[in-house]
């Protein structure tokens, strides 16, 4: 079963007396783009947190690449090859866009080399070149020297994605990657993510509200409602699932 990269089994999560996840089974196969949708409050963000290691599940297990990672913190899962972005782009506001990438690249490099790297004053030439290359690839070179906090909303999200990808993850988890974007930026993001998937070696798990984005990217869709999965399958299957139409999709589908 090595072609399943991430697997969550019977995931439950309680916050006090409120149960947000009621035993969710979910997996991401290698190379697929798996999109989790569901109405607000369905538990998408909590599922994301549990799968990425931001919080631990009340019960159930998470495995990555056949290894049990249920009790591994987020930073340890990242080292195994999970990368994630946040709903509100999180970047290092006071550092320049360039430095943001340097921090990400250096974090990746330290995992392979000795801790003496930490004593370096100036980032290695290879790191600086790589940072510049990535900024160019994501069309961010014009804001390279700006404090990241002063970037536009769309550029912040792009920078965050670039930082996450700098660590060369095998699984990319995106929490509402186009939330709050203009239609033009949204289109650009979909193309960018689709392009990444074409490059191969990357699997995707994302949550999204925008149906155009969902059906533009997904190879598989899972529908979450009140902490339970009500449907999972190919976009066509989910589109024609009567239960999904009833609780969630409604007229959005005909619009899409």
């Amino acid at each position, binding site marked *: 079963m090595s072609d399943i990269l991430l697997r969550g089994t019977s995931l439950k999560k309680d916050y006090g007396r409120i149960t947000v996840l009621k035993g969710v089974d979910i997996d991401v196969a290698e190379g697929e783009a798996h999109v989790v949708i569901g109405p607000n409050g369905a538990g998408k963000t909590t599922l994301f947190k549990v799968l990425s290691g931001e919080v631990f599940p009340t019960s159930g297990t998470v495995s990555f690449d056949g290894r049990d990672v249920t009790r591994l913190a987020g930073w340890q899962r990242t080292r195994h090859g999970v990368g994630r972005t946040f709903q509100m782009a999180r970047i290092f506001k006071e550092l320049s866009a360039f430095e943001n990438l340097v921090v990400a690249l250096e974090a990746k490099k330290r995992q392979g080399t000795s801790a003496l790297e930490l*004593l370096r004053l100036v980032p290695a030439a290879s790191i600086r070149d790589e940072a510049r290359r990535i900024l160019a690839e994501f069309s961010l070179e014009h804001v390279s020297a700006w404090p990241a906090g002063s970037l536009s909303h769309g550029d912040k999200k792009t920078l965050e994605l670039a930082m996450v990808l700098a660590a060369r993850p095998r699984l990319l988890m995106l929490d509402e990657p186009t939330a709050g974007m203009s239609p033009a930026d949204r289109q650009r993001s979909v193309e960018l993510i689709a392009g990444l998937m074409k490059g191969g070696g990357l699997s995707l798990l994302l949550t999204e509200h925008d149906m155009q984005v969902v059906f533009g990217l997904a190879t598989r869709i899972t529908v979450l409602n009140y902490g339970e999965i009500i449907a999972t399958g190919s976009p066509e299957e989910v589109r024609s699932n009567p239960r999904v139409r009833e609780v969630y999709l409604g007229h959005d589908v005909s619009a899409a």
Partner: protein
Amino acid sequence: MTRLSQVGLPQFLAILALLAGAAVALPGIANPGIVFLAGLAVIEIVIALAFNFLFSTVGILSFGQAAFILVGAYGGAAAIKFAGLSLLPALLVAGLVAGLLALAIGVVALRRVEGVYFAVLTLAFASLAYLTVGKVAVLGREDGLTGITRPAVDLGIVEIPVVATTSFYYFIVAVGVVLTAVMWFATNSQFGRVLRAIRQDQERAGFLGVNVQGYRLAAFVLAGAVTGIAGALLGPWTQIVTPDLGHWIQSTKPILQAMLGGAGFFWGPVVGAILFAVLTYATRTLVGITEIVTGGLLLAIVLAIPGGLLGLTGSLLRMIRRERSR
């Protein structure tokens, strides 16, 4: 070298050389009383730099740095008095003991994320250290350890005696220069870059694969060890160590100095410590005035000039330049 100038290494070395030069020149022009206070000021500068490293680079507010001064001072004094160690190994012992204490406190206190909790926890642990040391018979209880000598600096090939007050003063300046450089490296190297990133967004740093707690703990231990080494200079300099070195006033002094000079600047604590020393000296005969002046200044800085003295100077210079260019 162009790259190193980007991180400011040449500027740093120039300022450090200038300050060290001024400190070295002092005994030639000032009386021994002033030289004694200057030695204390150098020690306080290092302690304030270590505090500000935690505050401004790591983003944690410690109200318990006195604990590390205390164990460093006692560790160094005991190493000299009881174990007969020479000066450098004694400083090493002090750094080790203080670093271990920082490790123990950090493991417990750094679990609490909120800044104010950490501040109060460190305050409580430092108070515990202060009370405990004052009750231990071997450490002289409330009277402390007296008659601490100044053993020679053994460099392997040569032994340099530092018994004379001026020689020991130079030794303090030398150690101060080294520790200042250590703090600068910790702030501006890749290590410091990671810490600054953590301060700005620890979730993001974590999901780049950074062990956030590990880094914060390492930084706390480093600051504790440096503070301990600085504290170890106190015994041989004043010939006595007492539990009062662990009083919480000793923890708040570096906060005050860093804020006075400008916590956002590497040199802020240095400026603040010197200013504080001058202020204390100038108001030494007036009961209560030292507290009123420093308290008032600190309040004014937090309320009106968060950049401290260096920040204020910077804005003034910019204003003058703008006036001129008109």
